[in-house]
């Protein structure tokens, strides 16, 4: 991808990537929290 102002496609790529990374992290943390609650709750 070229330097300079990001194109609309670059912006969409970044936005989708960030959302997917956050989703994966949320699932990781969420399942640990859920398991702790179910194990010890």
């Amino acid at each position, binding site marked *: 991808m070229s330097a300079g102002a990001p194109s609309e*496609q670059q912006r969409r*790529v970044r936005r989708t*990537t960030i959302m997917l990374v956050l989703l994966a992290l949320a*699932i*990781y*943390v969420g*399942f640990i929290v859920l*398991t702790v609650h179910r194990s010890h709750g």
Partner: protein
Amino acid sequence: MAYSATAESHEHHDHKPSGLWRWLSTTNHKDIGTLYLIFAGVMFFVGGSMAMVIRLELFKPGMQFLDPAFFNSMTTVHALAMIFGAVMPAWVGLANWMIPLQVGAPDMALPRMNNFSFWLLPFAFTLLLIGFFVPGGAPAGGWTLYPPLVLQGGDSFPLAIFAIHLMGASSIMGAINVIVTIMNMRAPGMTLLRMPLFVWTWLITAYLLIAVMPVLAGAVTMLLTDHFFGTSFFSASGGGDPVMFQHVFWFFGHPEVYILILPAFGIVSEVIPTFSRKPLFGYEAMVYATASIAFLSFIVWAHHMFTVGMPLAGELFFMLSTMLIAIPTGVKVFNWSATMWKGSLTFEPPMLFCLAFLFLFSIGGFSGLMLAIAPADFQYQDTYFVVAHFHYVLVPGSIFTIIAAVYYWLPKWTGHMYDMTLAKWHFWLSTIFVNVLFFPQHFLGLAGMPRRIPDYATQFADWNMVSSIGGFGFGLSQLLFPYIVIKCIRGGEKAAARVWEGAHGLEWEVPSPAPYHTWETAPSLAVIHSGGEHWTED
């Protein structure tokens, strides 16, 4: 002859770096796809040689060659190597090679992350395999890593956990790359419902990966802290719950099965129309069936653990939801059969492997339905019937379709046709021996032979010997595969751009071999429409 060869030469002005640095630093989707496929091939033979060792020990009753702990390590690492080292990287390799070509994109959306996600894998598997050389030996508690057994492992335990974390990170990055590419990089005019089925199945697979790989990562992180930091997530002595691990593991594990098989459905949906010279029957139904299977995969996990003791309502729910999966799967099998109906069929190696898939995967599906019946499962649980079931699903399911995909696109990658006669030999030997290997395991399981044991009662001797003979035959016949591929890379009859006369799709619009850089200018709508005849019925 169903393929067309050409003497036409294509002038490629591709600039690409050379030597080792090219492969270490490459961000080109074709290079990275090749790396993934080579890695998967190596791990297929590593995992396969472990299977040979297992079948060697089980050839006769009594302990012949191995001590029981090493046998358990073989079954554990065989599974991890095949699932995370062979099948998943092979699918990612095929995705890297083909998705940009099929959607008209110049490369994957995140090429540097693509390089990183591949190069994590050799480190991950080095960590896993050096477990064989540390005190206590390699992991031996099964690929399911159930506590408390897994917590009693030797020094290889943290190595295996770290390896699984790295594999998971690699898979998640690969999945993110696939989704971002498909959602943002498609050529103008390539609407979602114009995409080839392989792209569709991979898109759904990638969402599955993002949804469940973090769950596995969370579970193994908790195992690690239970082992080293005194927590007791899964330790009953500290108030934890070992059965909870099984729930969390299978919440990952069942969708994982579909991660291994959904791209296979995509390959079959590409290959059967090509060699039937007909459009795929029910394209949209195939997309919805794939999505339905993916959704159902999240609500069936406890069918792996009917015997742990759960409320009757739970048993019923998981039994019935599991049986529901047969409906969209049946739609797919019907549609593939309907695609062939009155088609002008020819039987080149990719088609042969896909037809074997159709028959043998269905056998695995039916034994899956038997296992889904909770009261019957109490008899089958932890027997060789289960081993026969999942190997019928994964070997003729995933492995055969990966081979079919390689035979389908190899001329596009190399620019040469491969040795059809040898490839047909590869098919017939594989298909005969895979049945000799796994079909008797149904009988062994129904007779009560438990899985994951190095020795067995003499009543099981005959079918174990037959199964082992099938195993050695299957293993040896796979040596043909790298021979055929390497021979094809080194030379052969020139391949045309559209290698198979019935093939449709954007990948057949570029020359063979595919230039290093493709679709730097997006294909026109006319090209997309002409290449995409397989998605229109008229």
